[in-house]
């Protein structure tokens, strides 16, 4: 199996924007790993064939961690009307500037990995449709129902090679 890092990111204080936290913890449970508490990122618990972390956003300081993996699976919320509720897509490295100083896409993350660390892990995005993004904790019922299918999609990717 390719050594894999599952990177969940989002804001748990904005309802479904934090769905990746639930997905990462559900995955960890299925893999027999301890769940991440609210203040934990998982960065201090790496070292097995499938590691997982949860962060507020993708950031440059994650690059040196990610450089040690052969496959990256990014998990986030989406609001695209024309794709499935759990949407999985292969992602390629690509440079693109952003209006915000702190917005980094998976494609940009992979591009920086390639340029700065000379590595080209396989990249996937598994995104879950969000229904509500109010200022509160907890997922909407419709998004809660997509957590298990999202985990299954990730496990299918893990089993692929």
């Amino acid at each position, binding site marked *: 199996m390719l050594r894999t890092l599952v990177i969940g990111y989002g804001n748990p204080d904005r309802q479904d924007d934090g769905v990746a936290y639930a997905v990462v913890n559900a995955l960890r449970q299925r893999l027999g790993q301890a769940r991440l508490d609210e203040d934990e990122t998982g960065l201090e618990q790496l070292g097995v064939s499938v590691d997982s972390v949860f962060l507020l956003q993708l950031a440059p300081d994650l690059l040196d961690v990610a450089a040690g993996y052969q496959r990256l699976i990014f998990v986030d919320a989406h609001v695209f009307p024309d794709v499935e509720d759990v949407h999985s897509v292969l992602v390629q490295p690509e440079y693109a500037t952003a*209006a915000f*100083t702190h917005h980094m896409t998976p494609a940009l993350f992979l591009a920086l990995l390639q340029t700065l660390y000379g590595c080209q892990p396989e990249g996937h995005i598994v995104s879950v449709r969000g229904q509500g993004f109010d200022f509160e904790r907890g997922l909407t019922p419709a998004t809660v129902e997509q957590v298990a299918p999202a985990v299954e999609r990730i496990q299918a990717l893990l089993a692929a090679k």
Partner: protein
Amino acid sequence: MAQKITIEPVTRIEGHARVTIHLDDAGRVENTYFHVDEFRGVEKFSEGRPYFEMAQITQRICGICPVSHHLAAAKAGDNVAGAKPPRPANLLRELLHMGQIVQSHSMHFFHLAAPDLIFGFDADPATRNVFGIVQANPELALKAVNLRRYGQQIIERLGGKRVHPNLAVPGGVNAPLSQKDRDAIAAERETMVGYALEAIAIAKDLLGADANLTNSFAAFPSCYMGLVDAEGGLQLYDGEIRVVDAKGQKMAQFKPQDYKEHVAEHVECWSFLKFPYLKALGWPQGTYRVGPLGRLNVADKIGTPLAGAEFGLFKQINGGKPVEGSLYYHYARLIENLYALEQIGELLDDPDILSRDVRTYPPAELIGHGVGVIEAPRGTLFHEYWTDEHGLLTRVNLIVATGNNNWAMNTAAGQVARAFVDGTRLTEGMLNRVEAAIRCYDPCLSCATHALGQMPLHVTLHAADGSILDQVRR
């Protein structure tokens, strides 16, 4: 006919702002305004909360410099409670603070400021950014990433998380430092010092390439403010507040709790960001600058060897008088970055750094009022709290670092607009120069106004009748 140019948003800064440039009938710049339209309201919604929550609440004002608010709030809480932290606790708080200085200053130079200096103000915006630097010089970009990572990891080792750490509490900190974490921080420090020295060399080359521009770009006299230690040396964590005038003469030096005797805030209708000023001189004569340039202009020395030597060179720029050019903020920022890395070494070598005596528990009866002041990466940060007998906040006042520089950013933008903007022939590079003047101050507008903004991204030049004469898009 009179015209108005709007730059919205100002790019490569933290937070959201716009600049309007008002032209006279001949197309010359008449007035320039730096508008901050965010509104946070932290001072108000904190009322009723227990004072000891503020170290967690206020650091969520911002994800860029949360540690500054965390520590200022804890210091104010120390005074509310009447609980003086033990020395080891202050060492750990300062270590956390140095981690933030390193990550913030490194990030600003390489990510936000360097693209203008390396590629030029008129370079194609598609490459005039950090990704252009990554592609042009990946080795340098990797060093920048590692400097930021190093600072973030110090914060994580001490406070459990890279953003919004949990360490400082009223009366001290909630955990000692482990030997393992101490050694891990120490192991990479020398390498990071090397990177910091390299960054200074790059900045000096870039700023020296056109000395006339560097000396004149957004250069103007002002007062300056910063913390100093007992010997007048640079202090970022604790000390007295010193103010010098435009000639470098000391105007005032006072304890943080006395700040209200010296500082007041002015309001303009066109911005949510207030304008602090010195009461002694009144508004607007009493305006001052804070942050790296302000701090190095008020300090007599820097107490660490490498940064101290660089400080000596800095002081020669204007013959020992305050350095006025806004572009020198970038140089001053990198000197502070170097100081922070050296200070991390001093702290790690202190015999008390691993002590388990890290908390003084508050007495039963609270003082009920406290001030906490710290030098955030962007400047002097004031937190002041009033509580009832139960410790619930009845009033909060925050003067945030960037707010102290509000007048200066307006002045810088206006000066550069007058020098470079030609209303009859608008170019993207002209407007980028106006933004670059603001970027020198590394503003954090999310902090200073205590949002979520919409992000339209174009500049339009309107005639007096509202018709569009010209547009520039980014």
